[in-house]
């Protein structure tokens, strides 16, 4: 089965237009793609790729604080306030610098790609990485968690989350584009069908002495994806940035 690209023509045209304008004006335009493949007994039964539409406020705030060297400061999570909102609902902004990544070495910036840091969750862990859910509430810029996360396990309605794959980065010299693929497998050993309606990127960030789980993107799937018992799902987020030269 070949991968089906499902982004509608009109929005794909607009994505290409903004990328072109960014190159012309010297403004970085980060892009994100979501690819999902379902296999059963070695056979691919679903494979599609689409644009990810849903960087959240956490991602915007994280990027903004890095380029401007601002502190997180505030008590609410809304327009005009620079805070982080953890997946447990805690809002943090006590006038400290923060980071949507983690990986500290001897009190200094370290390995952001290491297991347990940033996106790279370990086996069975939902504290970071790609996580799936069964809720289909509309994507929300202020969203901070999946609506209904599918928990780790082998019983009804649960998934076995594999260890996150190592990041795979690549450079396209023709288009001057850096890309990094962040991927994770999930197995359905529940004994029944599991319907996946939402998928998110969780990252372990850092602020003051805390290493919170932050949702930086959530995509609602339309149509939803049916993962049969004994089936396997591979979810890949590819983040890319096109450079002027």
């Amino acid at each position: 089965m070949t991968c089906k690209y499902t982004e509608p023509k009109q929005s794909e045209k607009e994505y290409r237009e903004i990328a072109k304008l960014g190159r012309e004006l010297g403004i970085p335009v980060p892009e994100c793609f979501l690819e999902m493949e379902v296999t059963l007994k070695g056979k691919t039964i679903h494979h599609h790729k689409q644009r990810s539409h849903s960087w959240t406020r956490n991602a915007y705030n994280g990027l903004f604080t890095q380029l401007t060297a601002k502190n997180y400061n505030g008590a609410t999570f809304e327009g005009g306030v620079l805070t982080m909102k953890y997946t447990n609902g805690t809002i943090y902004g006590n006038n400290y610098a923060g980071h949507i990544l983690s990986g500290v070495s001897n009190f200094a910036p370290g390995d952001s790609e290491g297991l347990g840091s940033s996106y790279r969750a370990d086996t069975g862990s939902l504290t970071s990485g790609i996580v799936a859910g069964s809720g289909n509430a509309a994507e929300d810029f202020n969203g901070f968690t999946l609506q209904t996360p599918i928990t780790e396990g082998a019983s009804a309605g649960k998934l076995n989350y594999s260890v996150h794959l190592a990041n795979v980065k690549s450079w396209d010299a023709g288009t001057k584009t850096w890309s990094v693929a962040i991927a994770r497998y999930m197995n359905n050993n529940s004994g029944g069908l599991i319907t996946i309606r939402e998928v998110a990127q969780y990252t372990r960030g850092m602020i003051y002495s805390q290493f919170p789980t932050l949702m930086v993107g959530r995509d609602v799937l339309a149509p939803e994806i049916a993962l049969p018992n004994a089936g396997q799902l591979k979810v890949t987020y590819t983040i890319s940035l096109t450079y002027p030269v």
Partner: protein
Amino acid sequence: MQILDTPETEAKYQRLETLGKKLGIPLLCGRLDLQVTQNGKILSHRKQRSHSWTRNAYNLIFCQLGSTNPADASFGSGYLSYKRTDGGITRYTGSYGAWVTYIDYYNVETRENESAGRGSRAAANDAGHGIVVGTNGAVESFEHCNLQTPIANGLGAGQLSMIAQEAPALSYDAGTKTLMDTLVRFMNNNSGGDITVREVGYIVKMQTGTAYSMSNFLFSRDVLNPEVVIPNAGQIRIQYQI
């Protein structure tokens, strides 16, 4: 006040911002505002888009969103690393990487990053950090890691007194849903002669090792066209808004 961007260019920026909002893509746009005064009188005032994020800024954005270590030994097309203002390359070598986030030396904790001398806020007399100026009008390059001819701090010929950068001010436009950080720095010309400013840079400190090891990185450089003349006893106010 003089607006330097043409209506056609401005329309493109506005189209970009409209699409960014519609498609949910974070965009970081910069604006420069320069005002020269002398004896309380405004001699010139201009505003323009900043056109020139450097490779350092792009690499930071990619490494942040993609949780990727900047691990390459070279700096340029197809490499992920940072180039310091002294020309040296900073990269992840298995121990330390580089973040703008400020980490305490004695605890695994982040600290505040807006004091003078940290982040993007220059201390008094520091001509190599924060908002900086130079005299060289060489064309903007994505690869630049410093101003081409920085103006030093001082009272001698060709020098400017670099005032401490003001505290960064956060504002929000609820209509356009735009968050803005405003950086302002004054510089006084007590050199005895005119000083011509042809380039403006934005230099940020990143932590690159333990024990508060910080280095300076050029994130943006704009060539001024036309150039800006600061007469003796004059003052320039530079506002950089992201």
